[in-house]
């Protein structure tokens, strides 16, 4: 296998992080995979090998292989030839890792951001309080506890009458 001469600037973890920050979440393109807290670690080895560790959001998420391929491609696009993409389950992904900026973009996109998780009971029949992303009202009803993707639920706002999606608090 032939290796191109690595350019030193492409081999800083910060450069890799910046590249990964450009990868949109395949199901919610308004946020990136780093906004979502899915990238857990970036290391650059002595021989120039870049290892990216990411954690899946939901274990059955159909976008996982797309994310994995996108990470590998984004690093290769920096001129890195030796890339390893690892996945980890520990610690398990939580919506608490979604950064504030991304929460605001989710809201503007019409998706209610997740409430803080806390360590609630396992068997909890009431869903967390959710605010309408359009008018800010808490006078909302959940209309379906599973939405178009594993991470969302469906709501309707009784104040402004708009239906909306809400991020599950995980």
């Amino acid at each position, binding site marked *: 296998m032939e290796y191109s001469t690595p350019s030193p600037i492409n081999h800083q973890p910060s450069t890799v992080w910046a590249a990964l920050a450009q990868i949109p979440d395949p199901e919610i393109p308004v946020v990136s995979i780093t906004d979502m807290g899915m990238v857990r670690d970036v290391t650059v080895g002595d021989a120039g090998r870049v290892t990216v560790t990411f954690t899946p959001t939901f*274990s*059955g998420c159909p976008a996982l292989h797309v994310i994995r391929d996108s990470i590998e491609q984004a690093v290769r696009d920096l001129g890195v030839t030796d890339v390893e993409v690892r996945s980890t389950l520990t610690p398990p992904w939580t919506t608490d890792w979604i950064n504030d900026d991304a929460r605001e973009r989710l809201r503007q996109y019409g998706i209610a951001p997740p409430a803080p998780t806390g360590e609630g009971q396992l*068997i909890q029949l009431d869903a967390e309080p959710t605010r309408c992303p359009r008018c800010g009202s808490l006078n909302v009803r959940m209309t379906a*506890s*599973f939405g178009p993707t594993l991470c969302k639920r469906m709501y309707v706002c009784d104040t402004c009458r708009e239906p909306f999606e809400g991020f599950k608090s*995980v």
Partner: protein
Amino acid sequence: MTTGIQALTDTQTQALLLKLTVLADDEIILAHRDGEWTGHAPILEEDIALANIAQDELGHAGLYLSLAQTLGGSDPDRVAFWRGPDDYRNTRLVELPKGDWAFTMVRQFLYDTAEALWLEAATRSTYAPLAEIAAKAVREEKFHVQHTALWVERLALGTPESERRTQAALTELWPHAAQLFQPVEGEDELTAAGILPDLNAVHARWTDLITRHLVDKCGLTLPDAPTTQPGRDTHTHHLAPLLEEMQSVARQHPDAEVW
């Protein structure tokens, strides 16, 4: 305190492989039954909900089978798509035909609560890879329990017809539910080592939880439990046609790499 892969003895490895297969088989078969509602559920939202639930259960099966592979098991796709009914080790509870909506929701409730409680206990496994899987999966299972518990309540306390169907479903499913708590060969040793949860303790918590919900809250009657249970290698005649359908694409295209 956690132990690594190297800490397992050969006997423990074999027992754990079997347990992981048993867990995955239940998830795969139930996911298939849930998937049969796609396009047929009473309302669109439930169509989507069951597809979501099925997707989660398959995700859990994927986690179990990937761990099994690191312990010397086969490729997860081969395990799922190239074993026949004689080799599957799922419970009869999950293989029964999907029935009506009440049947589907009662089964899912019995299963989800058992899975959630088992996973919660398994987060304390001394075997780190299993504890990690449990910590991941239990967060997802929580949503299943919330959803199906509400449906069972809604049906049981709904109309006389929905109550009748819910009770009929419970009566039919009940004899099979205890099989979820049947230990695999060698499970005792794994439990003693703290690798697997104490199945009897999980069973007791499950009985308490479902009694409070089904009997106290929903007014349903639990039938007498059967005194004996056939093993997980004994299936009803419903499993073979299910597998035939589920595996048809894989078997028609054995060399396919991307599905």
